[in-house]
């Protein structure tokens, strides 16, 4: 039985890793439950994040409320296609892709699939690495609303979507972290005994 934090190996039945102090479990049996719980919470929080405005802009002549997609479209109208692409990728493509990827991993860990475990491990690593980058939109809102405070000329305030979006990102990060990646490989060793070199 190996420690997932420091990779030290212990005999079966040891409860805690003596080297780093993390809890040892051969397989986290509740892993998938936790994954789904956080996943559902993340999806629920993601819905209002897209409906409500992320930014409320007040200028001398107009007041505008921007949702995530609306903001990206507006930036694209100004000709900054690169930035529009970053926003769309970071706050639409990545979260939706993450939801799908985690669901795929959790379902296939139970049911089995023809996709190789190595490919699925790669997918899991990508999900873990990329999840944090969705926070970029929350930070942009934070910077803008503290920076653009020019009394009557222009001011920007955060909208309610900023909060739900942040919650959604955190939930999906926790969902990915509670996934026990060893489950991907268990199905393999069940089907065929491990090869010796």
């Amino acid at each position, binding site marked *: 039985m190996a420690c997932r*934090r420091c990779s*030290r*190996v212990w005999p079966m039945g040891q409860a805690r890793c003596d080297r*780093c102090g993390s809890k040892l479990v051969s397989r986290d049996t509740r892993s998938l439950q936790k994954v789904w719980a956080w996943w559902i919470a993340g999806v629920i929080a993601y819905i209002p994040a897209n409906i409500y405005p992320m930014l409320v802009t007040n200028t001398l002549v107009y007041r505008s409320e921007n949702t995530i997609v609306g903001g990206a479209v507006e930036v694209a109208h100004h000709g900054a296609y690169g930035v529009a692409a970053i926003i769309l990728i970071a706050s639409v493509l990545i979260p939706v892709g993450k939801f799908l990827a985690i669901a795929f991993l959790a379902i296939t860990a139970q049911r089995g699939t023809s996709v190789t*475990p*190595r490919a699925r*491990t790669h997918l899991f690593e990508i999900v873990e690495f990329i999840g944090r980058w969705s926070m970029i939109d*929350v930070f942009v809102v934070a910077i803008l609303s503290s*920076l653009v405070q020019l009394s009557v000329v222009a001011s920007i305030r955060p909208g309610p979507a900023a909060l739900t979006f942040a919650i959604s990102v955190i939930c999906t990060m926790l969902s990915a972290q509670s996934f026990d990646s*060893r489950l991907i490989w268990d199905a393999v060793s069940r089907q065929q005994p491990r090869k010796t070199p």
Partner: protein
Amino acid sequence: MSPDQLEHTTPDAAAIKDLIGCPHCDALYVVRLPEHGGRAVCTHCHTVLIAPRKKAGKKMIALTLTVMILVIAAMFFPFIDINASGFGNSTSILDAASSFRSGYMVFLSVLVAAAILFVPLLRTILTLYVLVPVVRDRPPLPHARRAFRWSQELKPWAMAEIFAIGCAVALVKVQDLAHVGLGPAFWMFAALVVLVLINDNFLCTWSVWKSLELEED
């Protein structure tokens, strides 16, 4: 692609202390140290297991100290300034973090401040606490293991580099609204991001755990 791959083995073939279990797929290997600069990679799922570097400890301490100074300095200097029709405003990172002041948004403020300042800062402190005695060949300080475990667990929640990219996006968004300039803190933050990445690259967690274990025996 993967130099120094480790050999597969059965659990009872070697002393349990010399085994290493892949944290991703649970495959067991006998530890064989790769050369400095080399990497030991899991044949099963290609996770990097061991990657020792020459003088990694000293370099890491130097880098970590730099990161610490930069974080603290970047906190107080102005970050970005803005000008439009005679009205001006400059903002520091602390201002940005505390911009969600109204009502339930406070939660978001705490979150942003933690992600871009306090978690990175805490990680530098923990890393120094663990590494300094190890590098100086002294016994580790009390609770060094717990400190190192925490610093590893906090890793995904330190989001300084994401904040830096967020700045770039924010700049483009307001540049037609007003004139925007970058303050000294912005450049500190840019340097910080690069240093954090290099630092994490240097760190071979397995080597640190091993040395913590040896010191205590």
